[in-house]
């Protein structure tokens, strides 16, 4: 691998000029599978030409996994589409060359190109739901990919069977004639990969292949992609925003920012000695399972990723860079080779040997704890039926308990982290607390008032507020920020003439400025909108905030900012938080206690320290092991990859709900019939937390750092 890395760097410096095209063939490296040079893709819009991909060069060797990592607007997806020439107007490839086995794809005719797509280079899309045709069986869809390239139908079907087995779909014979909706999300992504593999391509372009999936399913798919590389020698270009996925999977990394390649090199070099302040800060700012910022705020990158239509002059990262000097704002830095073989970076500052100092973190603001913590929210044996209004006039639907008998307490100044995969009922629980859903049984007590039916609603609203996951959907696009805040202030009973001052104070509190007041939500970035959402919740002067995945729709570099904001608000205002996430690493920094939810019930609950360091329930252990860790030293750790998918809450398994996927349950130990017969109670374990498992503590977090 090392011998050819040097060759990579020599081709790296070729620019997007006519000269490069002329000399390109001479300098081509026969070992390279894909060699992209000086690629520039632009979009002609009303506001002028937007350069989404600007002078991008990289190469892939056979059997290699290359990660292209970047935030929204960095141009990573457009790069992938440009390789296959699938950029739709008004987008166009303006310059550069894409050499596949020495042939420049940009000069091929449309027919040759069509022949090449799928046969030589295949693509896997982010959303398996929309990538499959809902009215064709999966067998036919895989066969179609083959028939298009000239296989006869019978052989195609045979190969479809073989492929589904290869991507790990159980019971292939029967499932071949199933339709996509009969598969779960993870299984669908496997089918999409099977379609891509149909004609034995040499290169797979995977555009965020696991972003729409849960962590345990993500681990399955990543493992599958790794196996395909090992067994079939397929090269993979993996496009992702997740540094953790890159650290686990990739051999080489390309870091994109503002449409440019900013850093490129072998994965361990990028992770251990990045030469770009952006890469270094991004790695430092990622929420981690082994949170190192005890008692301090998270290291955060200020600002947000640039709009490709409005790039800053010079280095695109310069406005957010803590090391920026004068030249950074004037001149775009060149991608130059660095000391390590195969490593190059585009930075004016570090190219002269300057070292990147570690990101300074501020000491977290002192926590105001008003005397002893009062319990703000107490939930006892709550069940929520989510199917009660789906019936018609004459039909009473069967109940579906998305939340099935859970109890919890949140006190003032405390954060309870609630973690679970999609469909486990965490959002339903949150929405029931604030009165959007109605409980079927059990009690919700806020302060010392029991909320029941419609009467107690106001008491809840005064003390409990909700922050939504999607900052794009939770603000009315027709109303200015001032109007949205005024509405909340009016409900609280603030007189009209005091609302202006009050709204300004709220914006200042969440780190926005007065001039933002009269703008519409469209004028804000995702992180700013989430700040507005938090300000609106604070306007009601709550004691408790229910945070429903408040950072999971945001770019990685923004997440730390919002988590820090939430932390300082909690400490200054003595708020209680119920912080919901699908990923254990996100809640790690803020949480005092953690609850893990599976299929409507709690499986583990306890102090954050205890749960993270010695998980007692096998599901918690698997979640911890499945979270990708942005550290290459961790890539060979022992992982627990759960098989199967979340069962439907319509028809939960008898006994222990987790038994159908449990690595220590009756699937493995046939004698453990107790798991099938008796639901385990949530009881204290030896390590201080509660766990609902008959064999608690048997499977702890394997191979994890202490």
């Amino acid at each position, binding site marked *: 691998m090392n011998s050819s890395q040097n060759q990579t760097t020599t081709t790296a410096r070729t620019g997007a000029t006519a000269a490069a095209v002329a000399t390109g063939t001479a300098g081509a490296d026969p070992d390279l599978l894909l060699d992209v040079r000086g690629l520039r893709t632009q979009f002609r819009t009303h506001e002028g030409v937007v350069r989404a991909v600007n002078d991008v060069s990289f190469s892939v060797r056979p059997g290699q996994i290359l990660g292209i990592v970047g935030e929204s607007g960095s141009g990573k997806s457009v790069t992938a589409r440009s390789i296959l020439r699938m950029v739709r107007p008004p987008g166009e490839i303006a310059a550069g060359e894409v050499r596949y086995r020495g042939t420049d794809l940009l000069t091929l005719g449309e027919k040759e190109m069509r022949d090449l797509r799928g046969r030589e280079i295949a693509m896997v899309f982010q959303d398996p739901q929309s990538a499959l045709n809902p009215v064709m069986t999966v067998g036919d869809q895989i066969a179609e990919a083959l028939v298009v390239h000239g296989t006869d139908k019978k052989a195609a079907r045979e190969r479809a069977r073989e492929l589904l087995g290869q991507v790990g779909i159980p019971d292939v014979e029967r499932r071949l004639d199933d339709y996509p909706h009969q598969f779960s999300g993870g299984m669908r992504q496997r089918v999409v990969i099977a379609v891509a593999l149909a004609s034995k391509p040499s290169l797979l372009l995977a555009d965020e292949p696991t972003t729409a999936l849960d962590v345990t399913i993500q681990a399955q798919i990543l493992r599958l992609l790794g196996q395909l590389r090992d067994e079939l020698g397929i090269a993979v270009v993996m496009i992702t925003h997740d540094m953790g996925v890159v650290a686990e999977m990739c051999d080489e990394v390309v870091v994109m920012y503002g449409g440019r390649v900013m850093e490129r090199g072998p994965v361990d070099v990028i992770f251990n000695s990045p030469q770009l302040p952006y890469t270094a800060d991004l790695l430092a700012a990622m929420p981690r399972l082994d949170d190192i910022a005890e008692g301090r705020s998270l290291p955060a990158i200020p600002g947000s990723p640039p709009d*490709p239509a409005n790039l800053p002059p010079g280095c695109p990262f310069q406005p957010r860079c803590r090391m920026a000097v004068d030249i950074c704002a004037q001149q775009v830095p060149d991608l130059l080779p660095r000391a390590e073989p195969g490593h190059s970076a585009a930075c004016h500052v570090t190219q002269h040997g300057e070292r990147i100092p570690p990101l300074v973190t501020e000491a977290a603001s002192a926590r105001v704890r008003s005397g002893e913590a009062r319990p703000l929210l107490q939930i006892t044996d709550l069940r929520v039926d989510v199917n009660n*209004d789906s019936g018609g*006039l004459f039909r009473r639907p069967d109940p579906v308990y998305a939340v099935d008998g859970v109890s919890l307490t949140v006190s003032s100044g405390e954060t309870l982290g609630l973690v679970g995969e999609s469909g486990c009922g965490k959002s339903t629980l949150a929405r029931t607390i604030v009165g959007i859903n109605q409980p079927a049984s059990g009690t919700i007590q806020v302060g010392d008032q029991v909320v029941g039916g419609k009467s107690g609603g106001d008491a809840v609203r005064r003390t409990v507020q909700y922050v939504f996951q999607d900052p794009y*959907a939770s603000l*009315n696009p027709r109303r200015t920020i001032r109007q949205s805040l005024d*509405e909340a202030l009016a409900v609280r009973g603030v007189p009209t003439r005091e609302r202006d001052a009050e709204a300004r104070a709220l914006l200042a509190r969440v780190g926005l400025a007065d001039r933002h007041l009269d703008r519409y939500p469209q004028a804000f970035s995702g992180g700013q909108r989430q700040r507005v959402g938090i300000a609106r919740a604070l306007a009601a002067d709550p004691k408790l905030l229910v945070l429903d995945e408040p950072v999971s729709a*945001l770019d990685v570099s923004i997440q730390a900012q919002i988590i820090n904001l939430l932390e300082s608000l909690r400490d200054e205002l003595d708020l209680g938080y119920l912080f919901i996430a699908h990923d254990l690493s996100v809640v790690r920094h803020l949480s005092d206690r953690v609850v893990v939810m599976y299929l409507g019930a709690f499986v583990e609950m306890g102090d954050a320290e205890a749960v993270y360091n010695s998980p007692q329930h096998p599901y918690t252990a698997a979640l911890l092991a499945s979270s990708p860790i942005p550290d290459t030293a961790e890539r060979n750790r022992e992982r627990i990859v759960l098989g199967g998918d979340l069962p439907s809450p319509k028809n939960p398994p008898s006994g222990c709900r987790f038994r159908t996927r449990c690595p220590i349950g009756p699937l493995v130990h046939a004698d453990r019939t107790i798991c099938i017969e008796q639901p385990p109670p949530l009881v204290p374990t030896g390590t201080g937390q509660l766990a609902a498992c008959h064999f608690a503590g048997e499977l702890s977090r394997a191979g994890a750092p202490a």
Partner: protein
Amino acid sequence: MTKALPVPGSPSDGAPVPAVEDTAQQVPPAGRSRRPRGGGAWSRYASALRTPKGMAAAVLLVLLVAVAVLAPVIFPGGYDQQARGALQGPSGGHWLGTDEFGRDILVRTVYGLRTDLSLILTAVPVSLVIGTLLGLSGYLSKPLGAVTQRILDIILGFPGLILGIMIVLVIGTGWLALFMAIVIAGLPGFGRMARGGLLSEQQREYVLAARVLGVKRSTIMVRHILPNVVDPLLVQASVFMVVAIFIEAGLSIVGLGINPPNPSLGAMLNVGARYVQSLPSYVIGPGAVLLLLALAFTLLSDALNQAATRR
């Protein structure tokens, strides 16, 4: 974690990077053309009229309405004045000729347009309002909404002509019967569309956010739901104007429209069809006006639709 929307405007995230923050303020002139600012519903509808289609529709409509309104001024003699010869061909005195009673066809066409416009411009808005209210009734209570929808389904089950005949049987022929027929025929369309909007808006996170804050239900309806439901309804109203014209024409053609001697475009087509070989201008005149009217509203609905969905 990826975001579907490109984010125009401020590139910074509120944290202390003042240098970039203000670049946002230089963007708006360009930004505005691509994405109309949220609040200005009126300005968005106005922008629909500034497109070529919208402009053509507006000019055509203003022209037709002006002619209809000014009919008594242009033709002070009224639509009943009889000339000497019946069924005369076009001439200098009678540009479209005369009908079976020797009345000027052009004059009657203009007065007929007046009748039609007075019908659809009152009946369609009434239908829009009632239909929308019926559609939104599910906001008050779920069963009420379900029952209303079933009633609208029943109306939808009757073809327009049968519906018109039933109304005529009850209240007799005339302007009022046509008015009622158009109002009732429009209810299912408006009602279902409003209900669809209601159901999707109720699940919007900003509506849920207002509920969690404790905003009054009526305020949520007026402030958050209604403005977002109105867009498609206005387009539908414009489309239904064309349908209404043909309901009038259809009922008149079978003789259930406006009572003679009052002219309407449909009634004239009905009678004129008998003389189509000897006097083609009898149908060409009202037919052409009918088509112009339909064209105007079709263009208008197209323009409104584009303006409403361009967000």
